[in-house]
């Protein structure tokens, strides 16, 4: 009996293509079905659902009341947000967010004490940085190499000079006057750039053939990983000036910024090292056999692949770092958090509600920034997975 006969006889080989199963969740009815199976499948399940629902409704109601319904939107000073006992106009049992405070002080929260007639410099920096980075972050736009160079090297230097000034017709604006959101974003952006570059170099150094270089990198990484950011900031702001001659003044903000950058670069180095390890040796071999040199191989073949793998991990580190920038208040710089805090306790606005409002505002701004980063990481991750499954990709296109 030959194979063909066998195939015809065996009953367990399907002769026709199976009819496709009806799609789930196509109508409203199956939404109920979904609710039923996911939320009320058993009595215990239903009980948990109800308890949690009550809790959520309770919290949402009180928060909503505080944030929206009982909130004060308009006002010139603290009286609108203070109760009668506190010297204001509200009933004594009143409690609500004081958005009037945010509205009255938002420029200070954004720009700090940066002179109003020079705020265009901050705005210009922001617009340029956003435009350049949108093109850099979109995976489909080519020239990543040049774009990355502009984003990571040109923009930080350019924005420092534009914001700090002190040359041509741009008056110098001391970093003592900087504050608020602009400081948070400036520090975060410049530290990200620096730490990305240093991190890459450290990762490459840690895998280098030259053992002294490798040892130095390992020593550097392992030492810095064991020190909290707070102490690095203290060292940068208090101890560092002791070591250098008095004549040289090194900007305080710049010192803090470099401290944060170096601190972050160590973590980024480890993430990138993970990516480098995932690139098979055969890639190096194929490249060397074509006659390419080490730097070219790294820049054009190994690093682009490694970065793609570790972008989500790096963004995760950067999210953590963005929030840690608020620690610079310990070296008396006023970032978003610091600035809104001192604004909320100034004499003409201080009430029990203003600090609470201030912190909710700060939390929201940080959340928006971090959420955007996390969505971007998710988007890249999905793209990487798509890259691994060519079939899906080519079908979709």
């Amino acid at each position, binding site marked *: 009996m030959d194979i063909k006969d066998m195939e015809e006889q065996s009953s367990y080989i399907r002769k026709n293509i199976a009819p496709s199963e009806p799609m789930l969740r196509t109508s409203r009815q199956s939404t109920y079905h979904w609710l039923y199976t996911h939320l009320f499948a058993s009595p215990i399940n239903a009980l948990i659902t109800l308890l949690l629902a009550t809790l959520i409704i309770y919290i949402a109601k009180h928060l909503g009341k505080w944030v929206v319904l009982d909130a004060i939107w308009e006002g010139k000073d603290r009286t609108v947000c203070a109760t009668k006992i506190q010297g204001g106009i509200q009933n004594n049992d009143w409690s609500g967010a004081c958005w009037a405070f945010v509205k009255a002080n938002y420029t200070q929260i954004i720009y700090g004490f940066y002179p109003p007639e020079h705020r265009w410099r901050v705005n210009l920096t922001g617009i340029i940085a956003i435009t350049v980075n949108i093109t850099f972050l979109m995976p489909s736009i080519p020239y990543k190499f040049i774009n990355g160079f502009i984003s990571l090297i040109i923009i930080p230097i350019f924005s420092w000079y534009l914001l700090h000034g002190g040359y041509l017709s741009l008056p110098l604006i001391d970093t003592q006057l900087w504050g608020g959101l602009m400081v948070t974003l400036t520090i975060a952006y410049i530290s990200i750039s620096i730490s990305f570059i240093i991190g890459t170099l450290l990762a490459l150094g840690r895998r280098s053939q030259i053992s002294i270089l490798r040892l130095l990198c390992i020593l550097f990484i392992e030492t810095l990983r064991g020190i909290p950011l707070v102490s690095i900031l203290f060292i940068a702001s208090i101890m560092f000036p002791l070591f250098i001659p008095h004549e040289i003044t090194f900007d305080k903000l710049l010192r803090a910024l470099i401290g944060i950058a170096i601190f972050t670069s160590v973590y980024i180095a480890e993430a990138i090292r993970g990516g480098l390890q995932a690139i098979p040796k*055969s890639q190096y071999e*194929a490249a*060397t*056999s*074509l*006659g390419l040199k080490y730097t070219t191989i790294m820049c054009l*073949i190994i690093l682009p*692949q490694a970065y793609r793998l570790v972008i989500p991990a790096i963004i995760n580190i950067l999210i953590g770092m963005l929030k840690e920038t608020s620690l610079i208040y310990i070296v008396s710089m006023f970032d978003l958090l610091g600035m809104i805090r001192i604004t909320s306790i100034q004499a003409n606005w201080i009430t029990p509600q203003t600090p609470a409002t201030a912190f909710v505002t700060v939390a929201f701004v940080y959340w928006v920034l971090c959420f955007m980063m996390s969505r971007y990481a998710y988007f890249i991750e999905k793209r990487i997975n798509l*890259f691994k499954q060519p079939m899906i990709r080519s079908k979709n296109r």
Partner: protein
Amino acid sequence: MKGIKENSRIHAINIINVNKWLGKMHILRNMDFSVKFQERVALIGPSGSGKSTLLRCINALETFQKGKIIIEGTELNNTPKTIHLIRRRIGMVFQKFNLFPHLTVLENCTLAPIWVKKMNKKKAEEEAFFYLEKVKISDQATKYPIQLSGGQQQRVAIARSLCMKPRMMLFDEPTSALDPEMIQEILDLIMDLTKNGMTIICVTHKMSFARQLAHRIAFMDEGQILEENASDRFFSNPQHERTQIFLRKML
């Protein structure tokens, strides 16, 4: 000394008494082997006998401890300059293709000409298309390697090597990661490309292919060349006992 000079005039690759150890393992033992200009040699032998290692030593992808390798009269030493010179003369095709997954087929082919030969992009693309045409895959130029079948990927890998216009090619089992129906395709392609007198060493497990392609067959076992002979004589009249056993298994 004079002998070597003489040899280098007729020999493209001259391997003299090469020894390689990996830890305690003796991988290449007193290897003596040479390949004439425009000669096609097939290297066969059991798994683990050191065939890949030999090819990788010729291309300076690996180092060896003792002996000499002379490529077209240039002795391979550890200076970056010689290594670079030699790699530019030799193209290599790997078992697992090793294409660059983040670059398109065309970019895979133009990368080395642009960065090593400093060719301008337009010229490099023209030449790449010429070779992609030759391996019959120019219609896939804008795709990524992962979107191609194994056979197609190997064609791209061959074109990528050819774009550097090497004088010799090393093939390390170019068909063993392919489906059976692709194998003949790639073999025909290699035969086709190499009829114009390129120096070739090809490691293969396909005896029929070795016989068709090569002027000369070398049988390698335990880090040594045990037997080498013109291809018809090698198969019809193997001398060494181990060659006979190996051939009996393979045929």
